């Protein structure tokens, strides 16, 4: 589904991603952990085509297409969804308006007709229940005045409606209280399916108790320095990143 090979990306001439390799197969969940500033959000931005990044080396293919050739909206239409670390507020644009415009844009790209108002509303209501959000949120401006946790839930609502093939969750758990964490995880798990993959970026092993990953990767200074199963997350929780990052620099030093 997704194949990232030797990806190097920089901002303003500063190299942030320094040779990422990652393969995600349909239905898999990959967790990405790593210290602050290691490049996790940058990877998400590059995958979704945010402006300002220069890809200096490497390739990304998504369902056998060169992802780097697609504009951000086209990537979204192709089924890539990003639940943002910091969802932005859009004053005056109602949540339901954005949802409808998004869903219809994606449907249109697949040659489907726009959903009529009734069908759309019943779909939205069903998904609202999934993330236990009140209907009032539909008529408020996008993320405006939402609490941190509400913003994150709203991201999952959008994801549930758009039904992406590849969902990237960037620290969706941060800022959530325990109950909200359970609700959001439940929402995410409900969307698990053999043909939907996820990349879950998190700092906390706790999330991975609810959303159980197939693989855990550690990103440090723009590289995946360790990969493993879900038990890797537990080790990290207990010991921090020091032991691998040090080991990694050791090996680097030795090879030089």
């Amino acid at each position, binding site marked *: 589904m997704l194949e990232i090979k030797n990806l190097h990306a920089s901002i303003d001439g500063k190299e942030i991603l320094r040779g990422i390799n990652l393969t995600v197969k349909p239905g898999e969940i990959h967790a990405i952990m790593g210290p602050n500033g290691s490049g996790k959000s940058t990877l998400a931005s590059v995958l*979704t*085509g*945010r*402006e*300002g990044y220069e890809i200096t080396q490497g390739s990304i293919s998504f369902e056998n297409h060169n992802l780097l050739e697609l*504009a*951000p*909206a086209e*990537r*979204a*239409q192709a089924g890539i*969804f*990003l639940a*943002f670390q910091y*969802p*932005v507020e*859009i*004053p*005056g*644009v109602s949540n339901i*308006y*954005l949802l409808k*415009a*998004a869903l219809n*844009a*994606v449907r249109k*790209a697949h040659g489907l007709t726009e959903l009529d108002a009734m069908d759309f509303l019943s779909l939205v209501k069903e998904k609202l229940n999934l993330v236990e959000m009140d209907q009032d949120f539909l008529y408020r*401006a*996008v993320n405006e005045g939402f609490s941190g946790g509400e913003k994150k839930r709203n991201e999952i609502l*959008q994801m549930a409606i*758009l039904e992406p093939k590849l969902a990237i969750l960037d620290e969706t758990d941060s800022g959530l209280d325990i109950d909200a964490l359970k609700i959001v995880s439940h929402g995410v798990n409900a969307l698990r399916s053999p043909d939907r993959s996820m990349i879950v970026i998190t700092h906390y092993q706790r999330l991975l108790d609810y959303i159980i990953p197939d693989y855990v990767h550690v990103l440090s200074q723009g590289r995946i320095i360790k990969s493993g199963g879900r038990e890797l997350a537990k080790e990290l929780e207990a010991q921090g990143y020091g032991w691998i990052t040090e080991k990694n620099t050791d090996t680097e030093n030795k090879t030089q």
Partner: protein
Amino acid sequence: MSQAALDTLISQEYKYGFVTDIEADTLPCGLNEDVIRLISAKKNEPEFMLNWRLQAFRHWLTMKEPHWSSTHYSPIDYQAISYYSAPKLKNRPKSLAEVDPKLLQTYEKLGIPLHEREILAGVAVDAVFDSVSVATSFKGKLAELGIIFCSFSEAVKEHPELIEKYLGTVVPHTDNFFASLNSAVFTDGSFVYIPKGVRCPMELSTYFRINAANTGQFERTLIIADEGSYVSYLEGCTAPMRDENQLHAAVVELIALDNAEIKYSTVQNWYPGDEEGRGGIFNFVTKRGLCRGIKSKISWTQVETGSAITWKYPSVILEGDYSVGEFYSVALTNHRQQADTGTKMVHIGKNTRSTIISKGIAAGHGQNAYRGLVKILKNATNARNYTQCDSLLMGEHCGAHTFPYIEVKNKTAQVEHEASTSKISADQLFYCQQRGISTEDAVSMIVNGFCKAVFRELPMEFAVEAQKLLGVSLEGSIG
């Protein structure tokens, strides 16, 4: 989003640039008393009208063109303008079938199919084409209610007593340079009278369109809402592409008597000039409403996307006790456009209230100024005003400026002012794009969201058009 990308996005060609070739009956350039006499004679006006025009002209000669606004333009040569131009029509058409097919084509291109509009929207259209009205509809239905909705020239002939009584009572012929010029040379416009206790059952609408090249356009509109009546009036326009700058100096007077309400909505989309600002229309308008009666109400709602230069301050004089004035405005400037717009709310009566919501959007090298005056006179006990001015900047080369003036002569007054300036953010755009929405749709969505408080005030039909227009004005060619 990069500056270059934003620049391409917001630079798009004017979609309505074409000139309809209708043989015009045009006066040679120049202005003197003879020209005014000729205009008056061509229109078969009664004596009082001619005298009023001449008075205005003589006063105008003593005035100087004002330059206090923040707009810049090369001097206007008033002798190089032709002051009269009319499409050749021997008899006024009684139905669309009698209307020049070319004119109908023009409306088609503008997306204003008159016939559909009449049926679907129940809108009576008094179309002003090159200063003379050529199509009118729904007259009969309105007439049954005693509503008068006709061209200004027709009103001068059919209802001279109303014209003589109200003309110039809100904007006197001495008011300002451009209003005096208009009073001297105006060729046509619209007239509305709503009788006592009548609620006008449909939106009254006029589409203006400037056509013959090098012709000054001087419209005059007068709307009177008698006691306890209500009317909603829509004014909208687009114009064809041309080279010379065109002066447009309209005057609109609104009068609301006891318990009457007038809602006046405008969508203005005149040719803004090319990317360098060449050839756009100069729009110097005087719009003023007088809340003469107790509990009367006047609302101005405007969406301004066109013209090279806009100089426009729809105002309300709150004379009657408990009267209400409102001003809702969206002004968009792109490329080299300059807009200096705002409002004046003059509180004279007791317990008068006014609300001002202004949304300025500047893109390209556009300059957008809000200039507002809230004036509370000595006897205006318990007057209240709320003003909110928000500016949205798109890109690095544009500017937004706010000049709020407040004069309070009564201690019981409450005046509130809020202002903000923001930039359309790359984060907002990317958020929408990441949800599959194209860049153009995303920009239009964000800008429309910014303008929501104003669009909410527009009649439904118009709101949809205004949103489209903003989309079109900002859409372009992002790579």
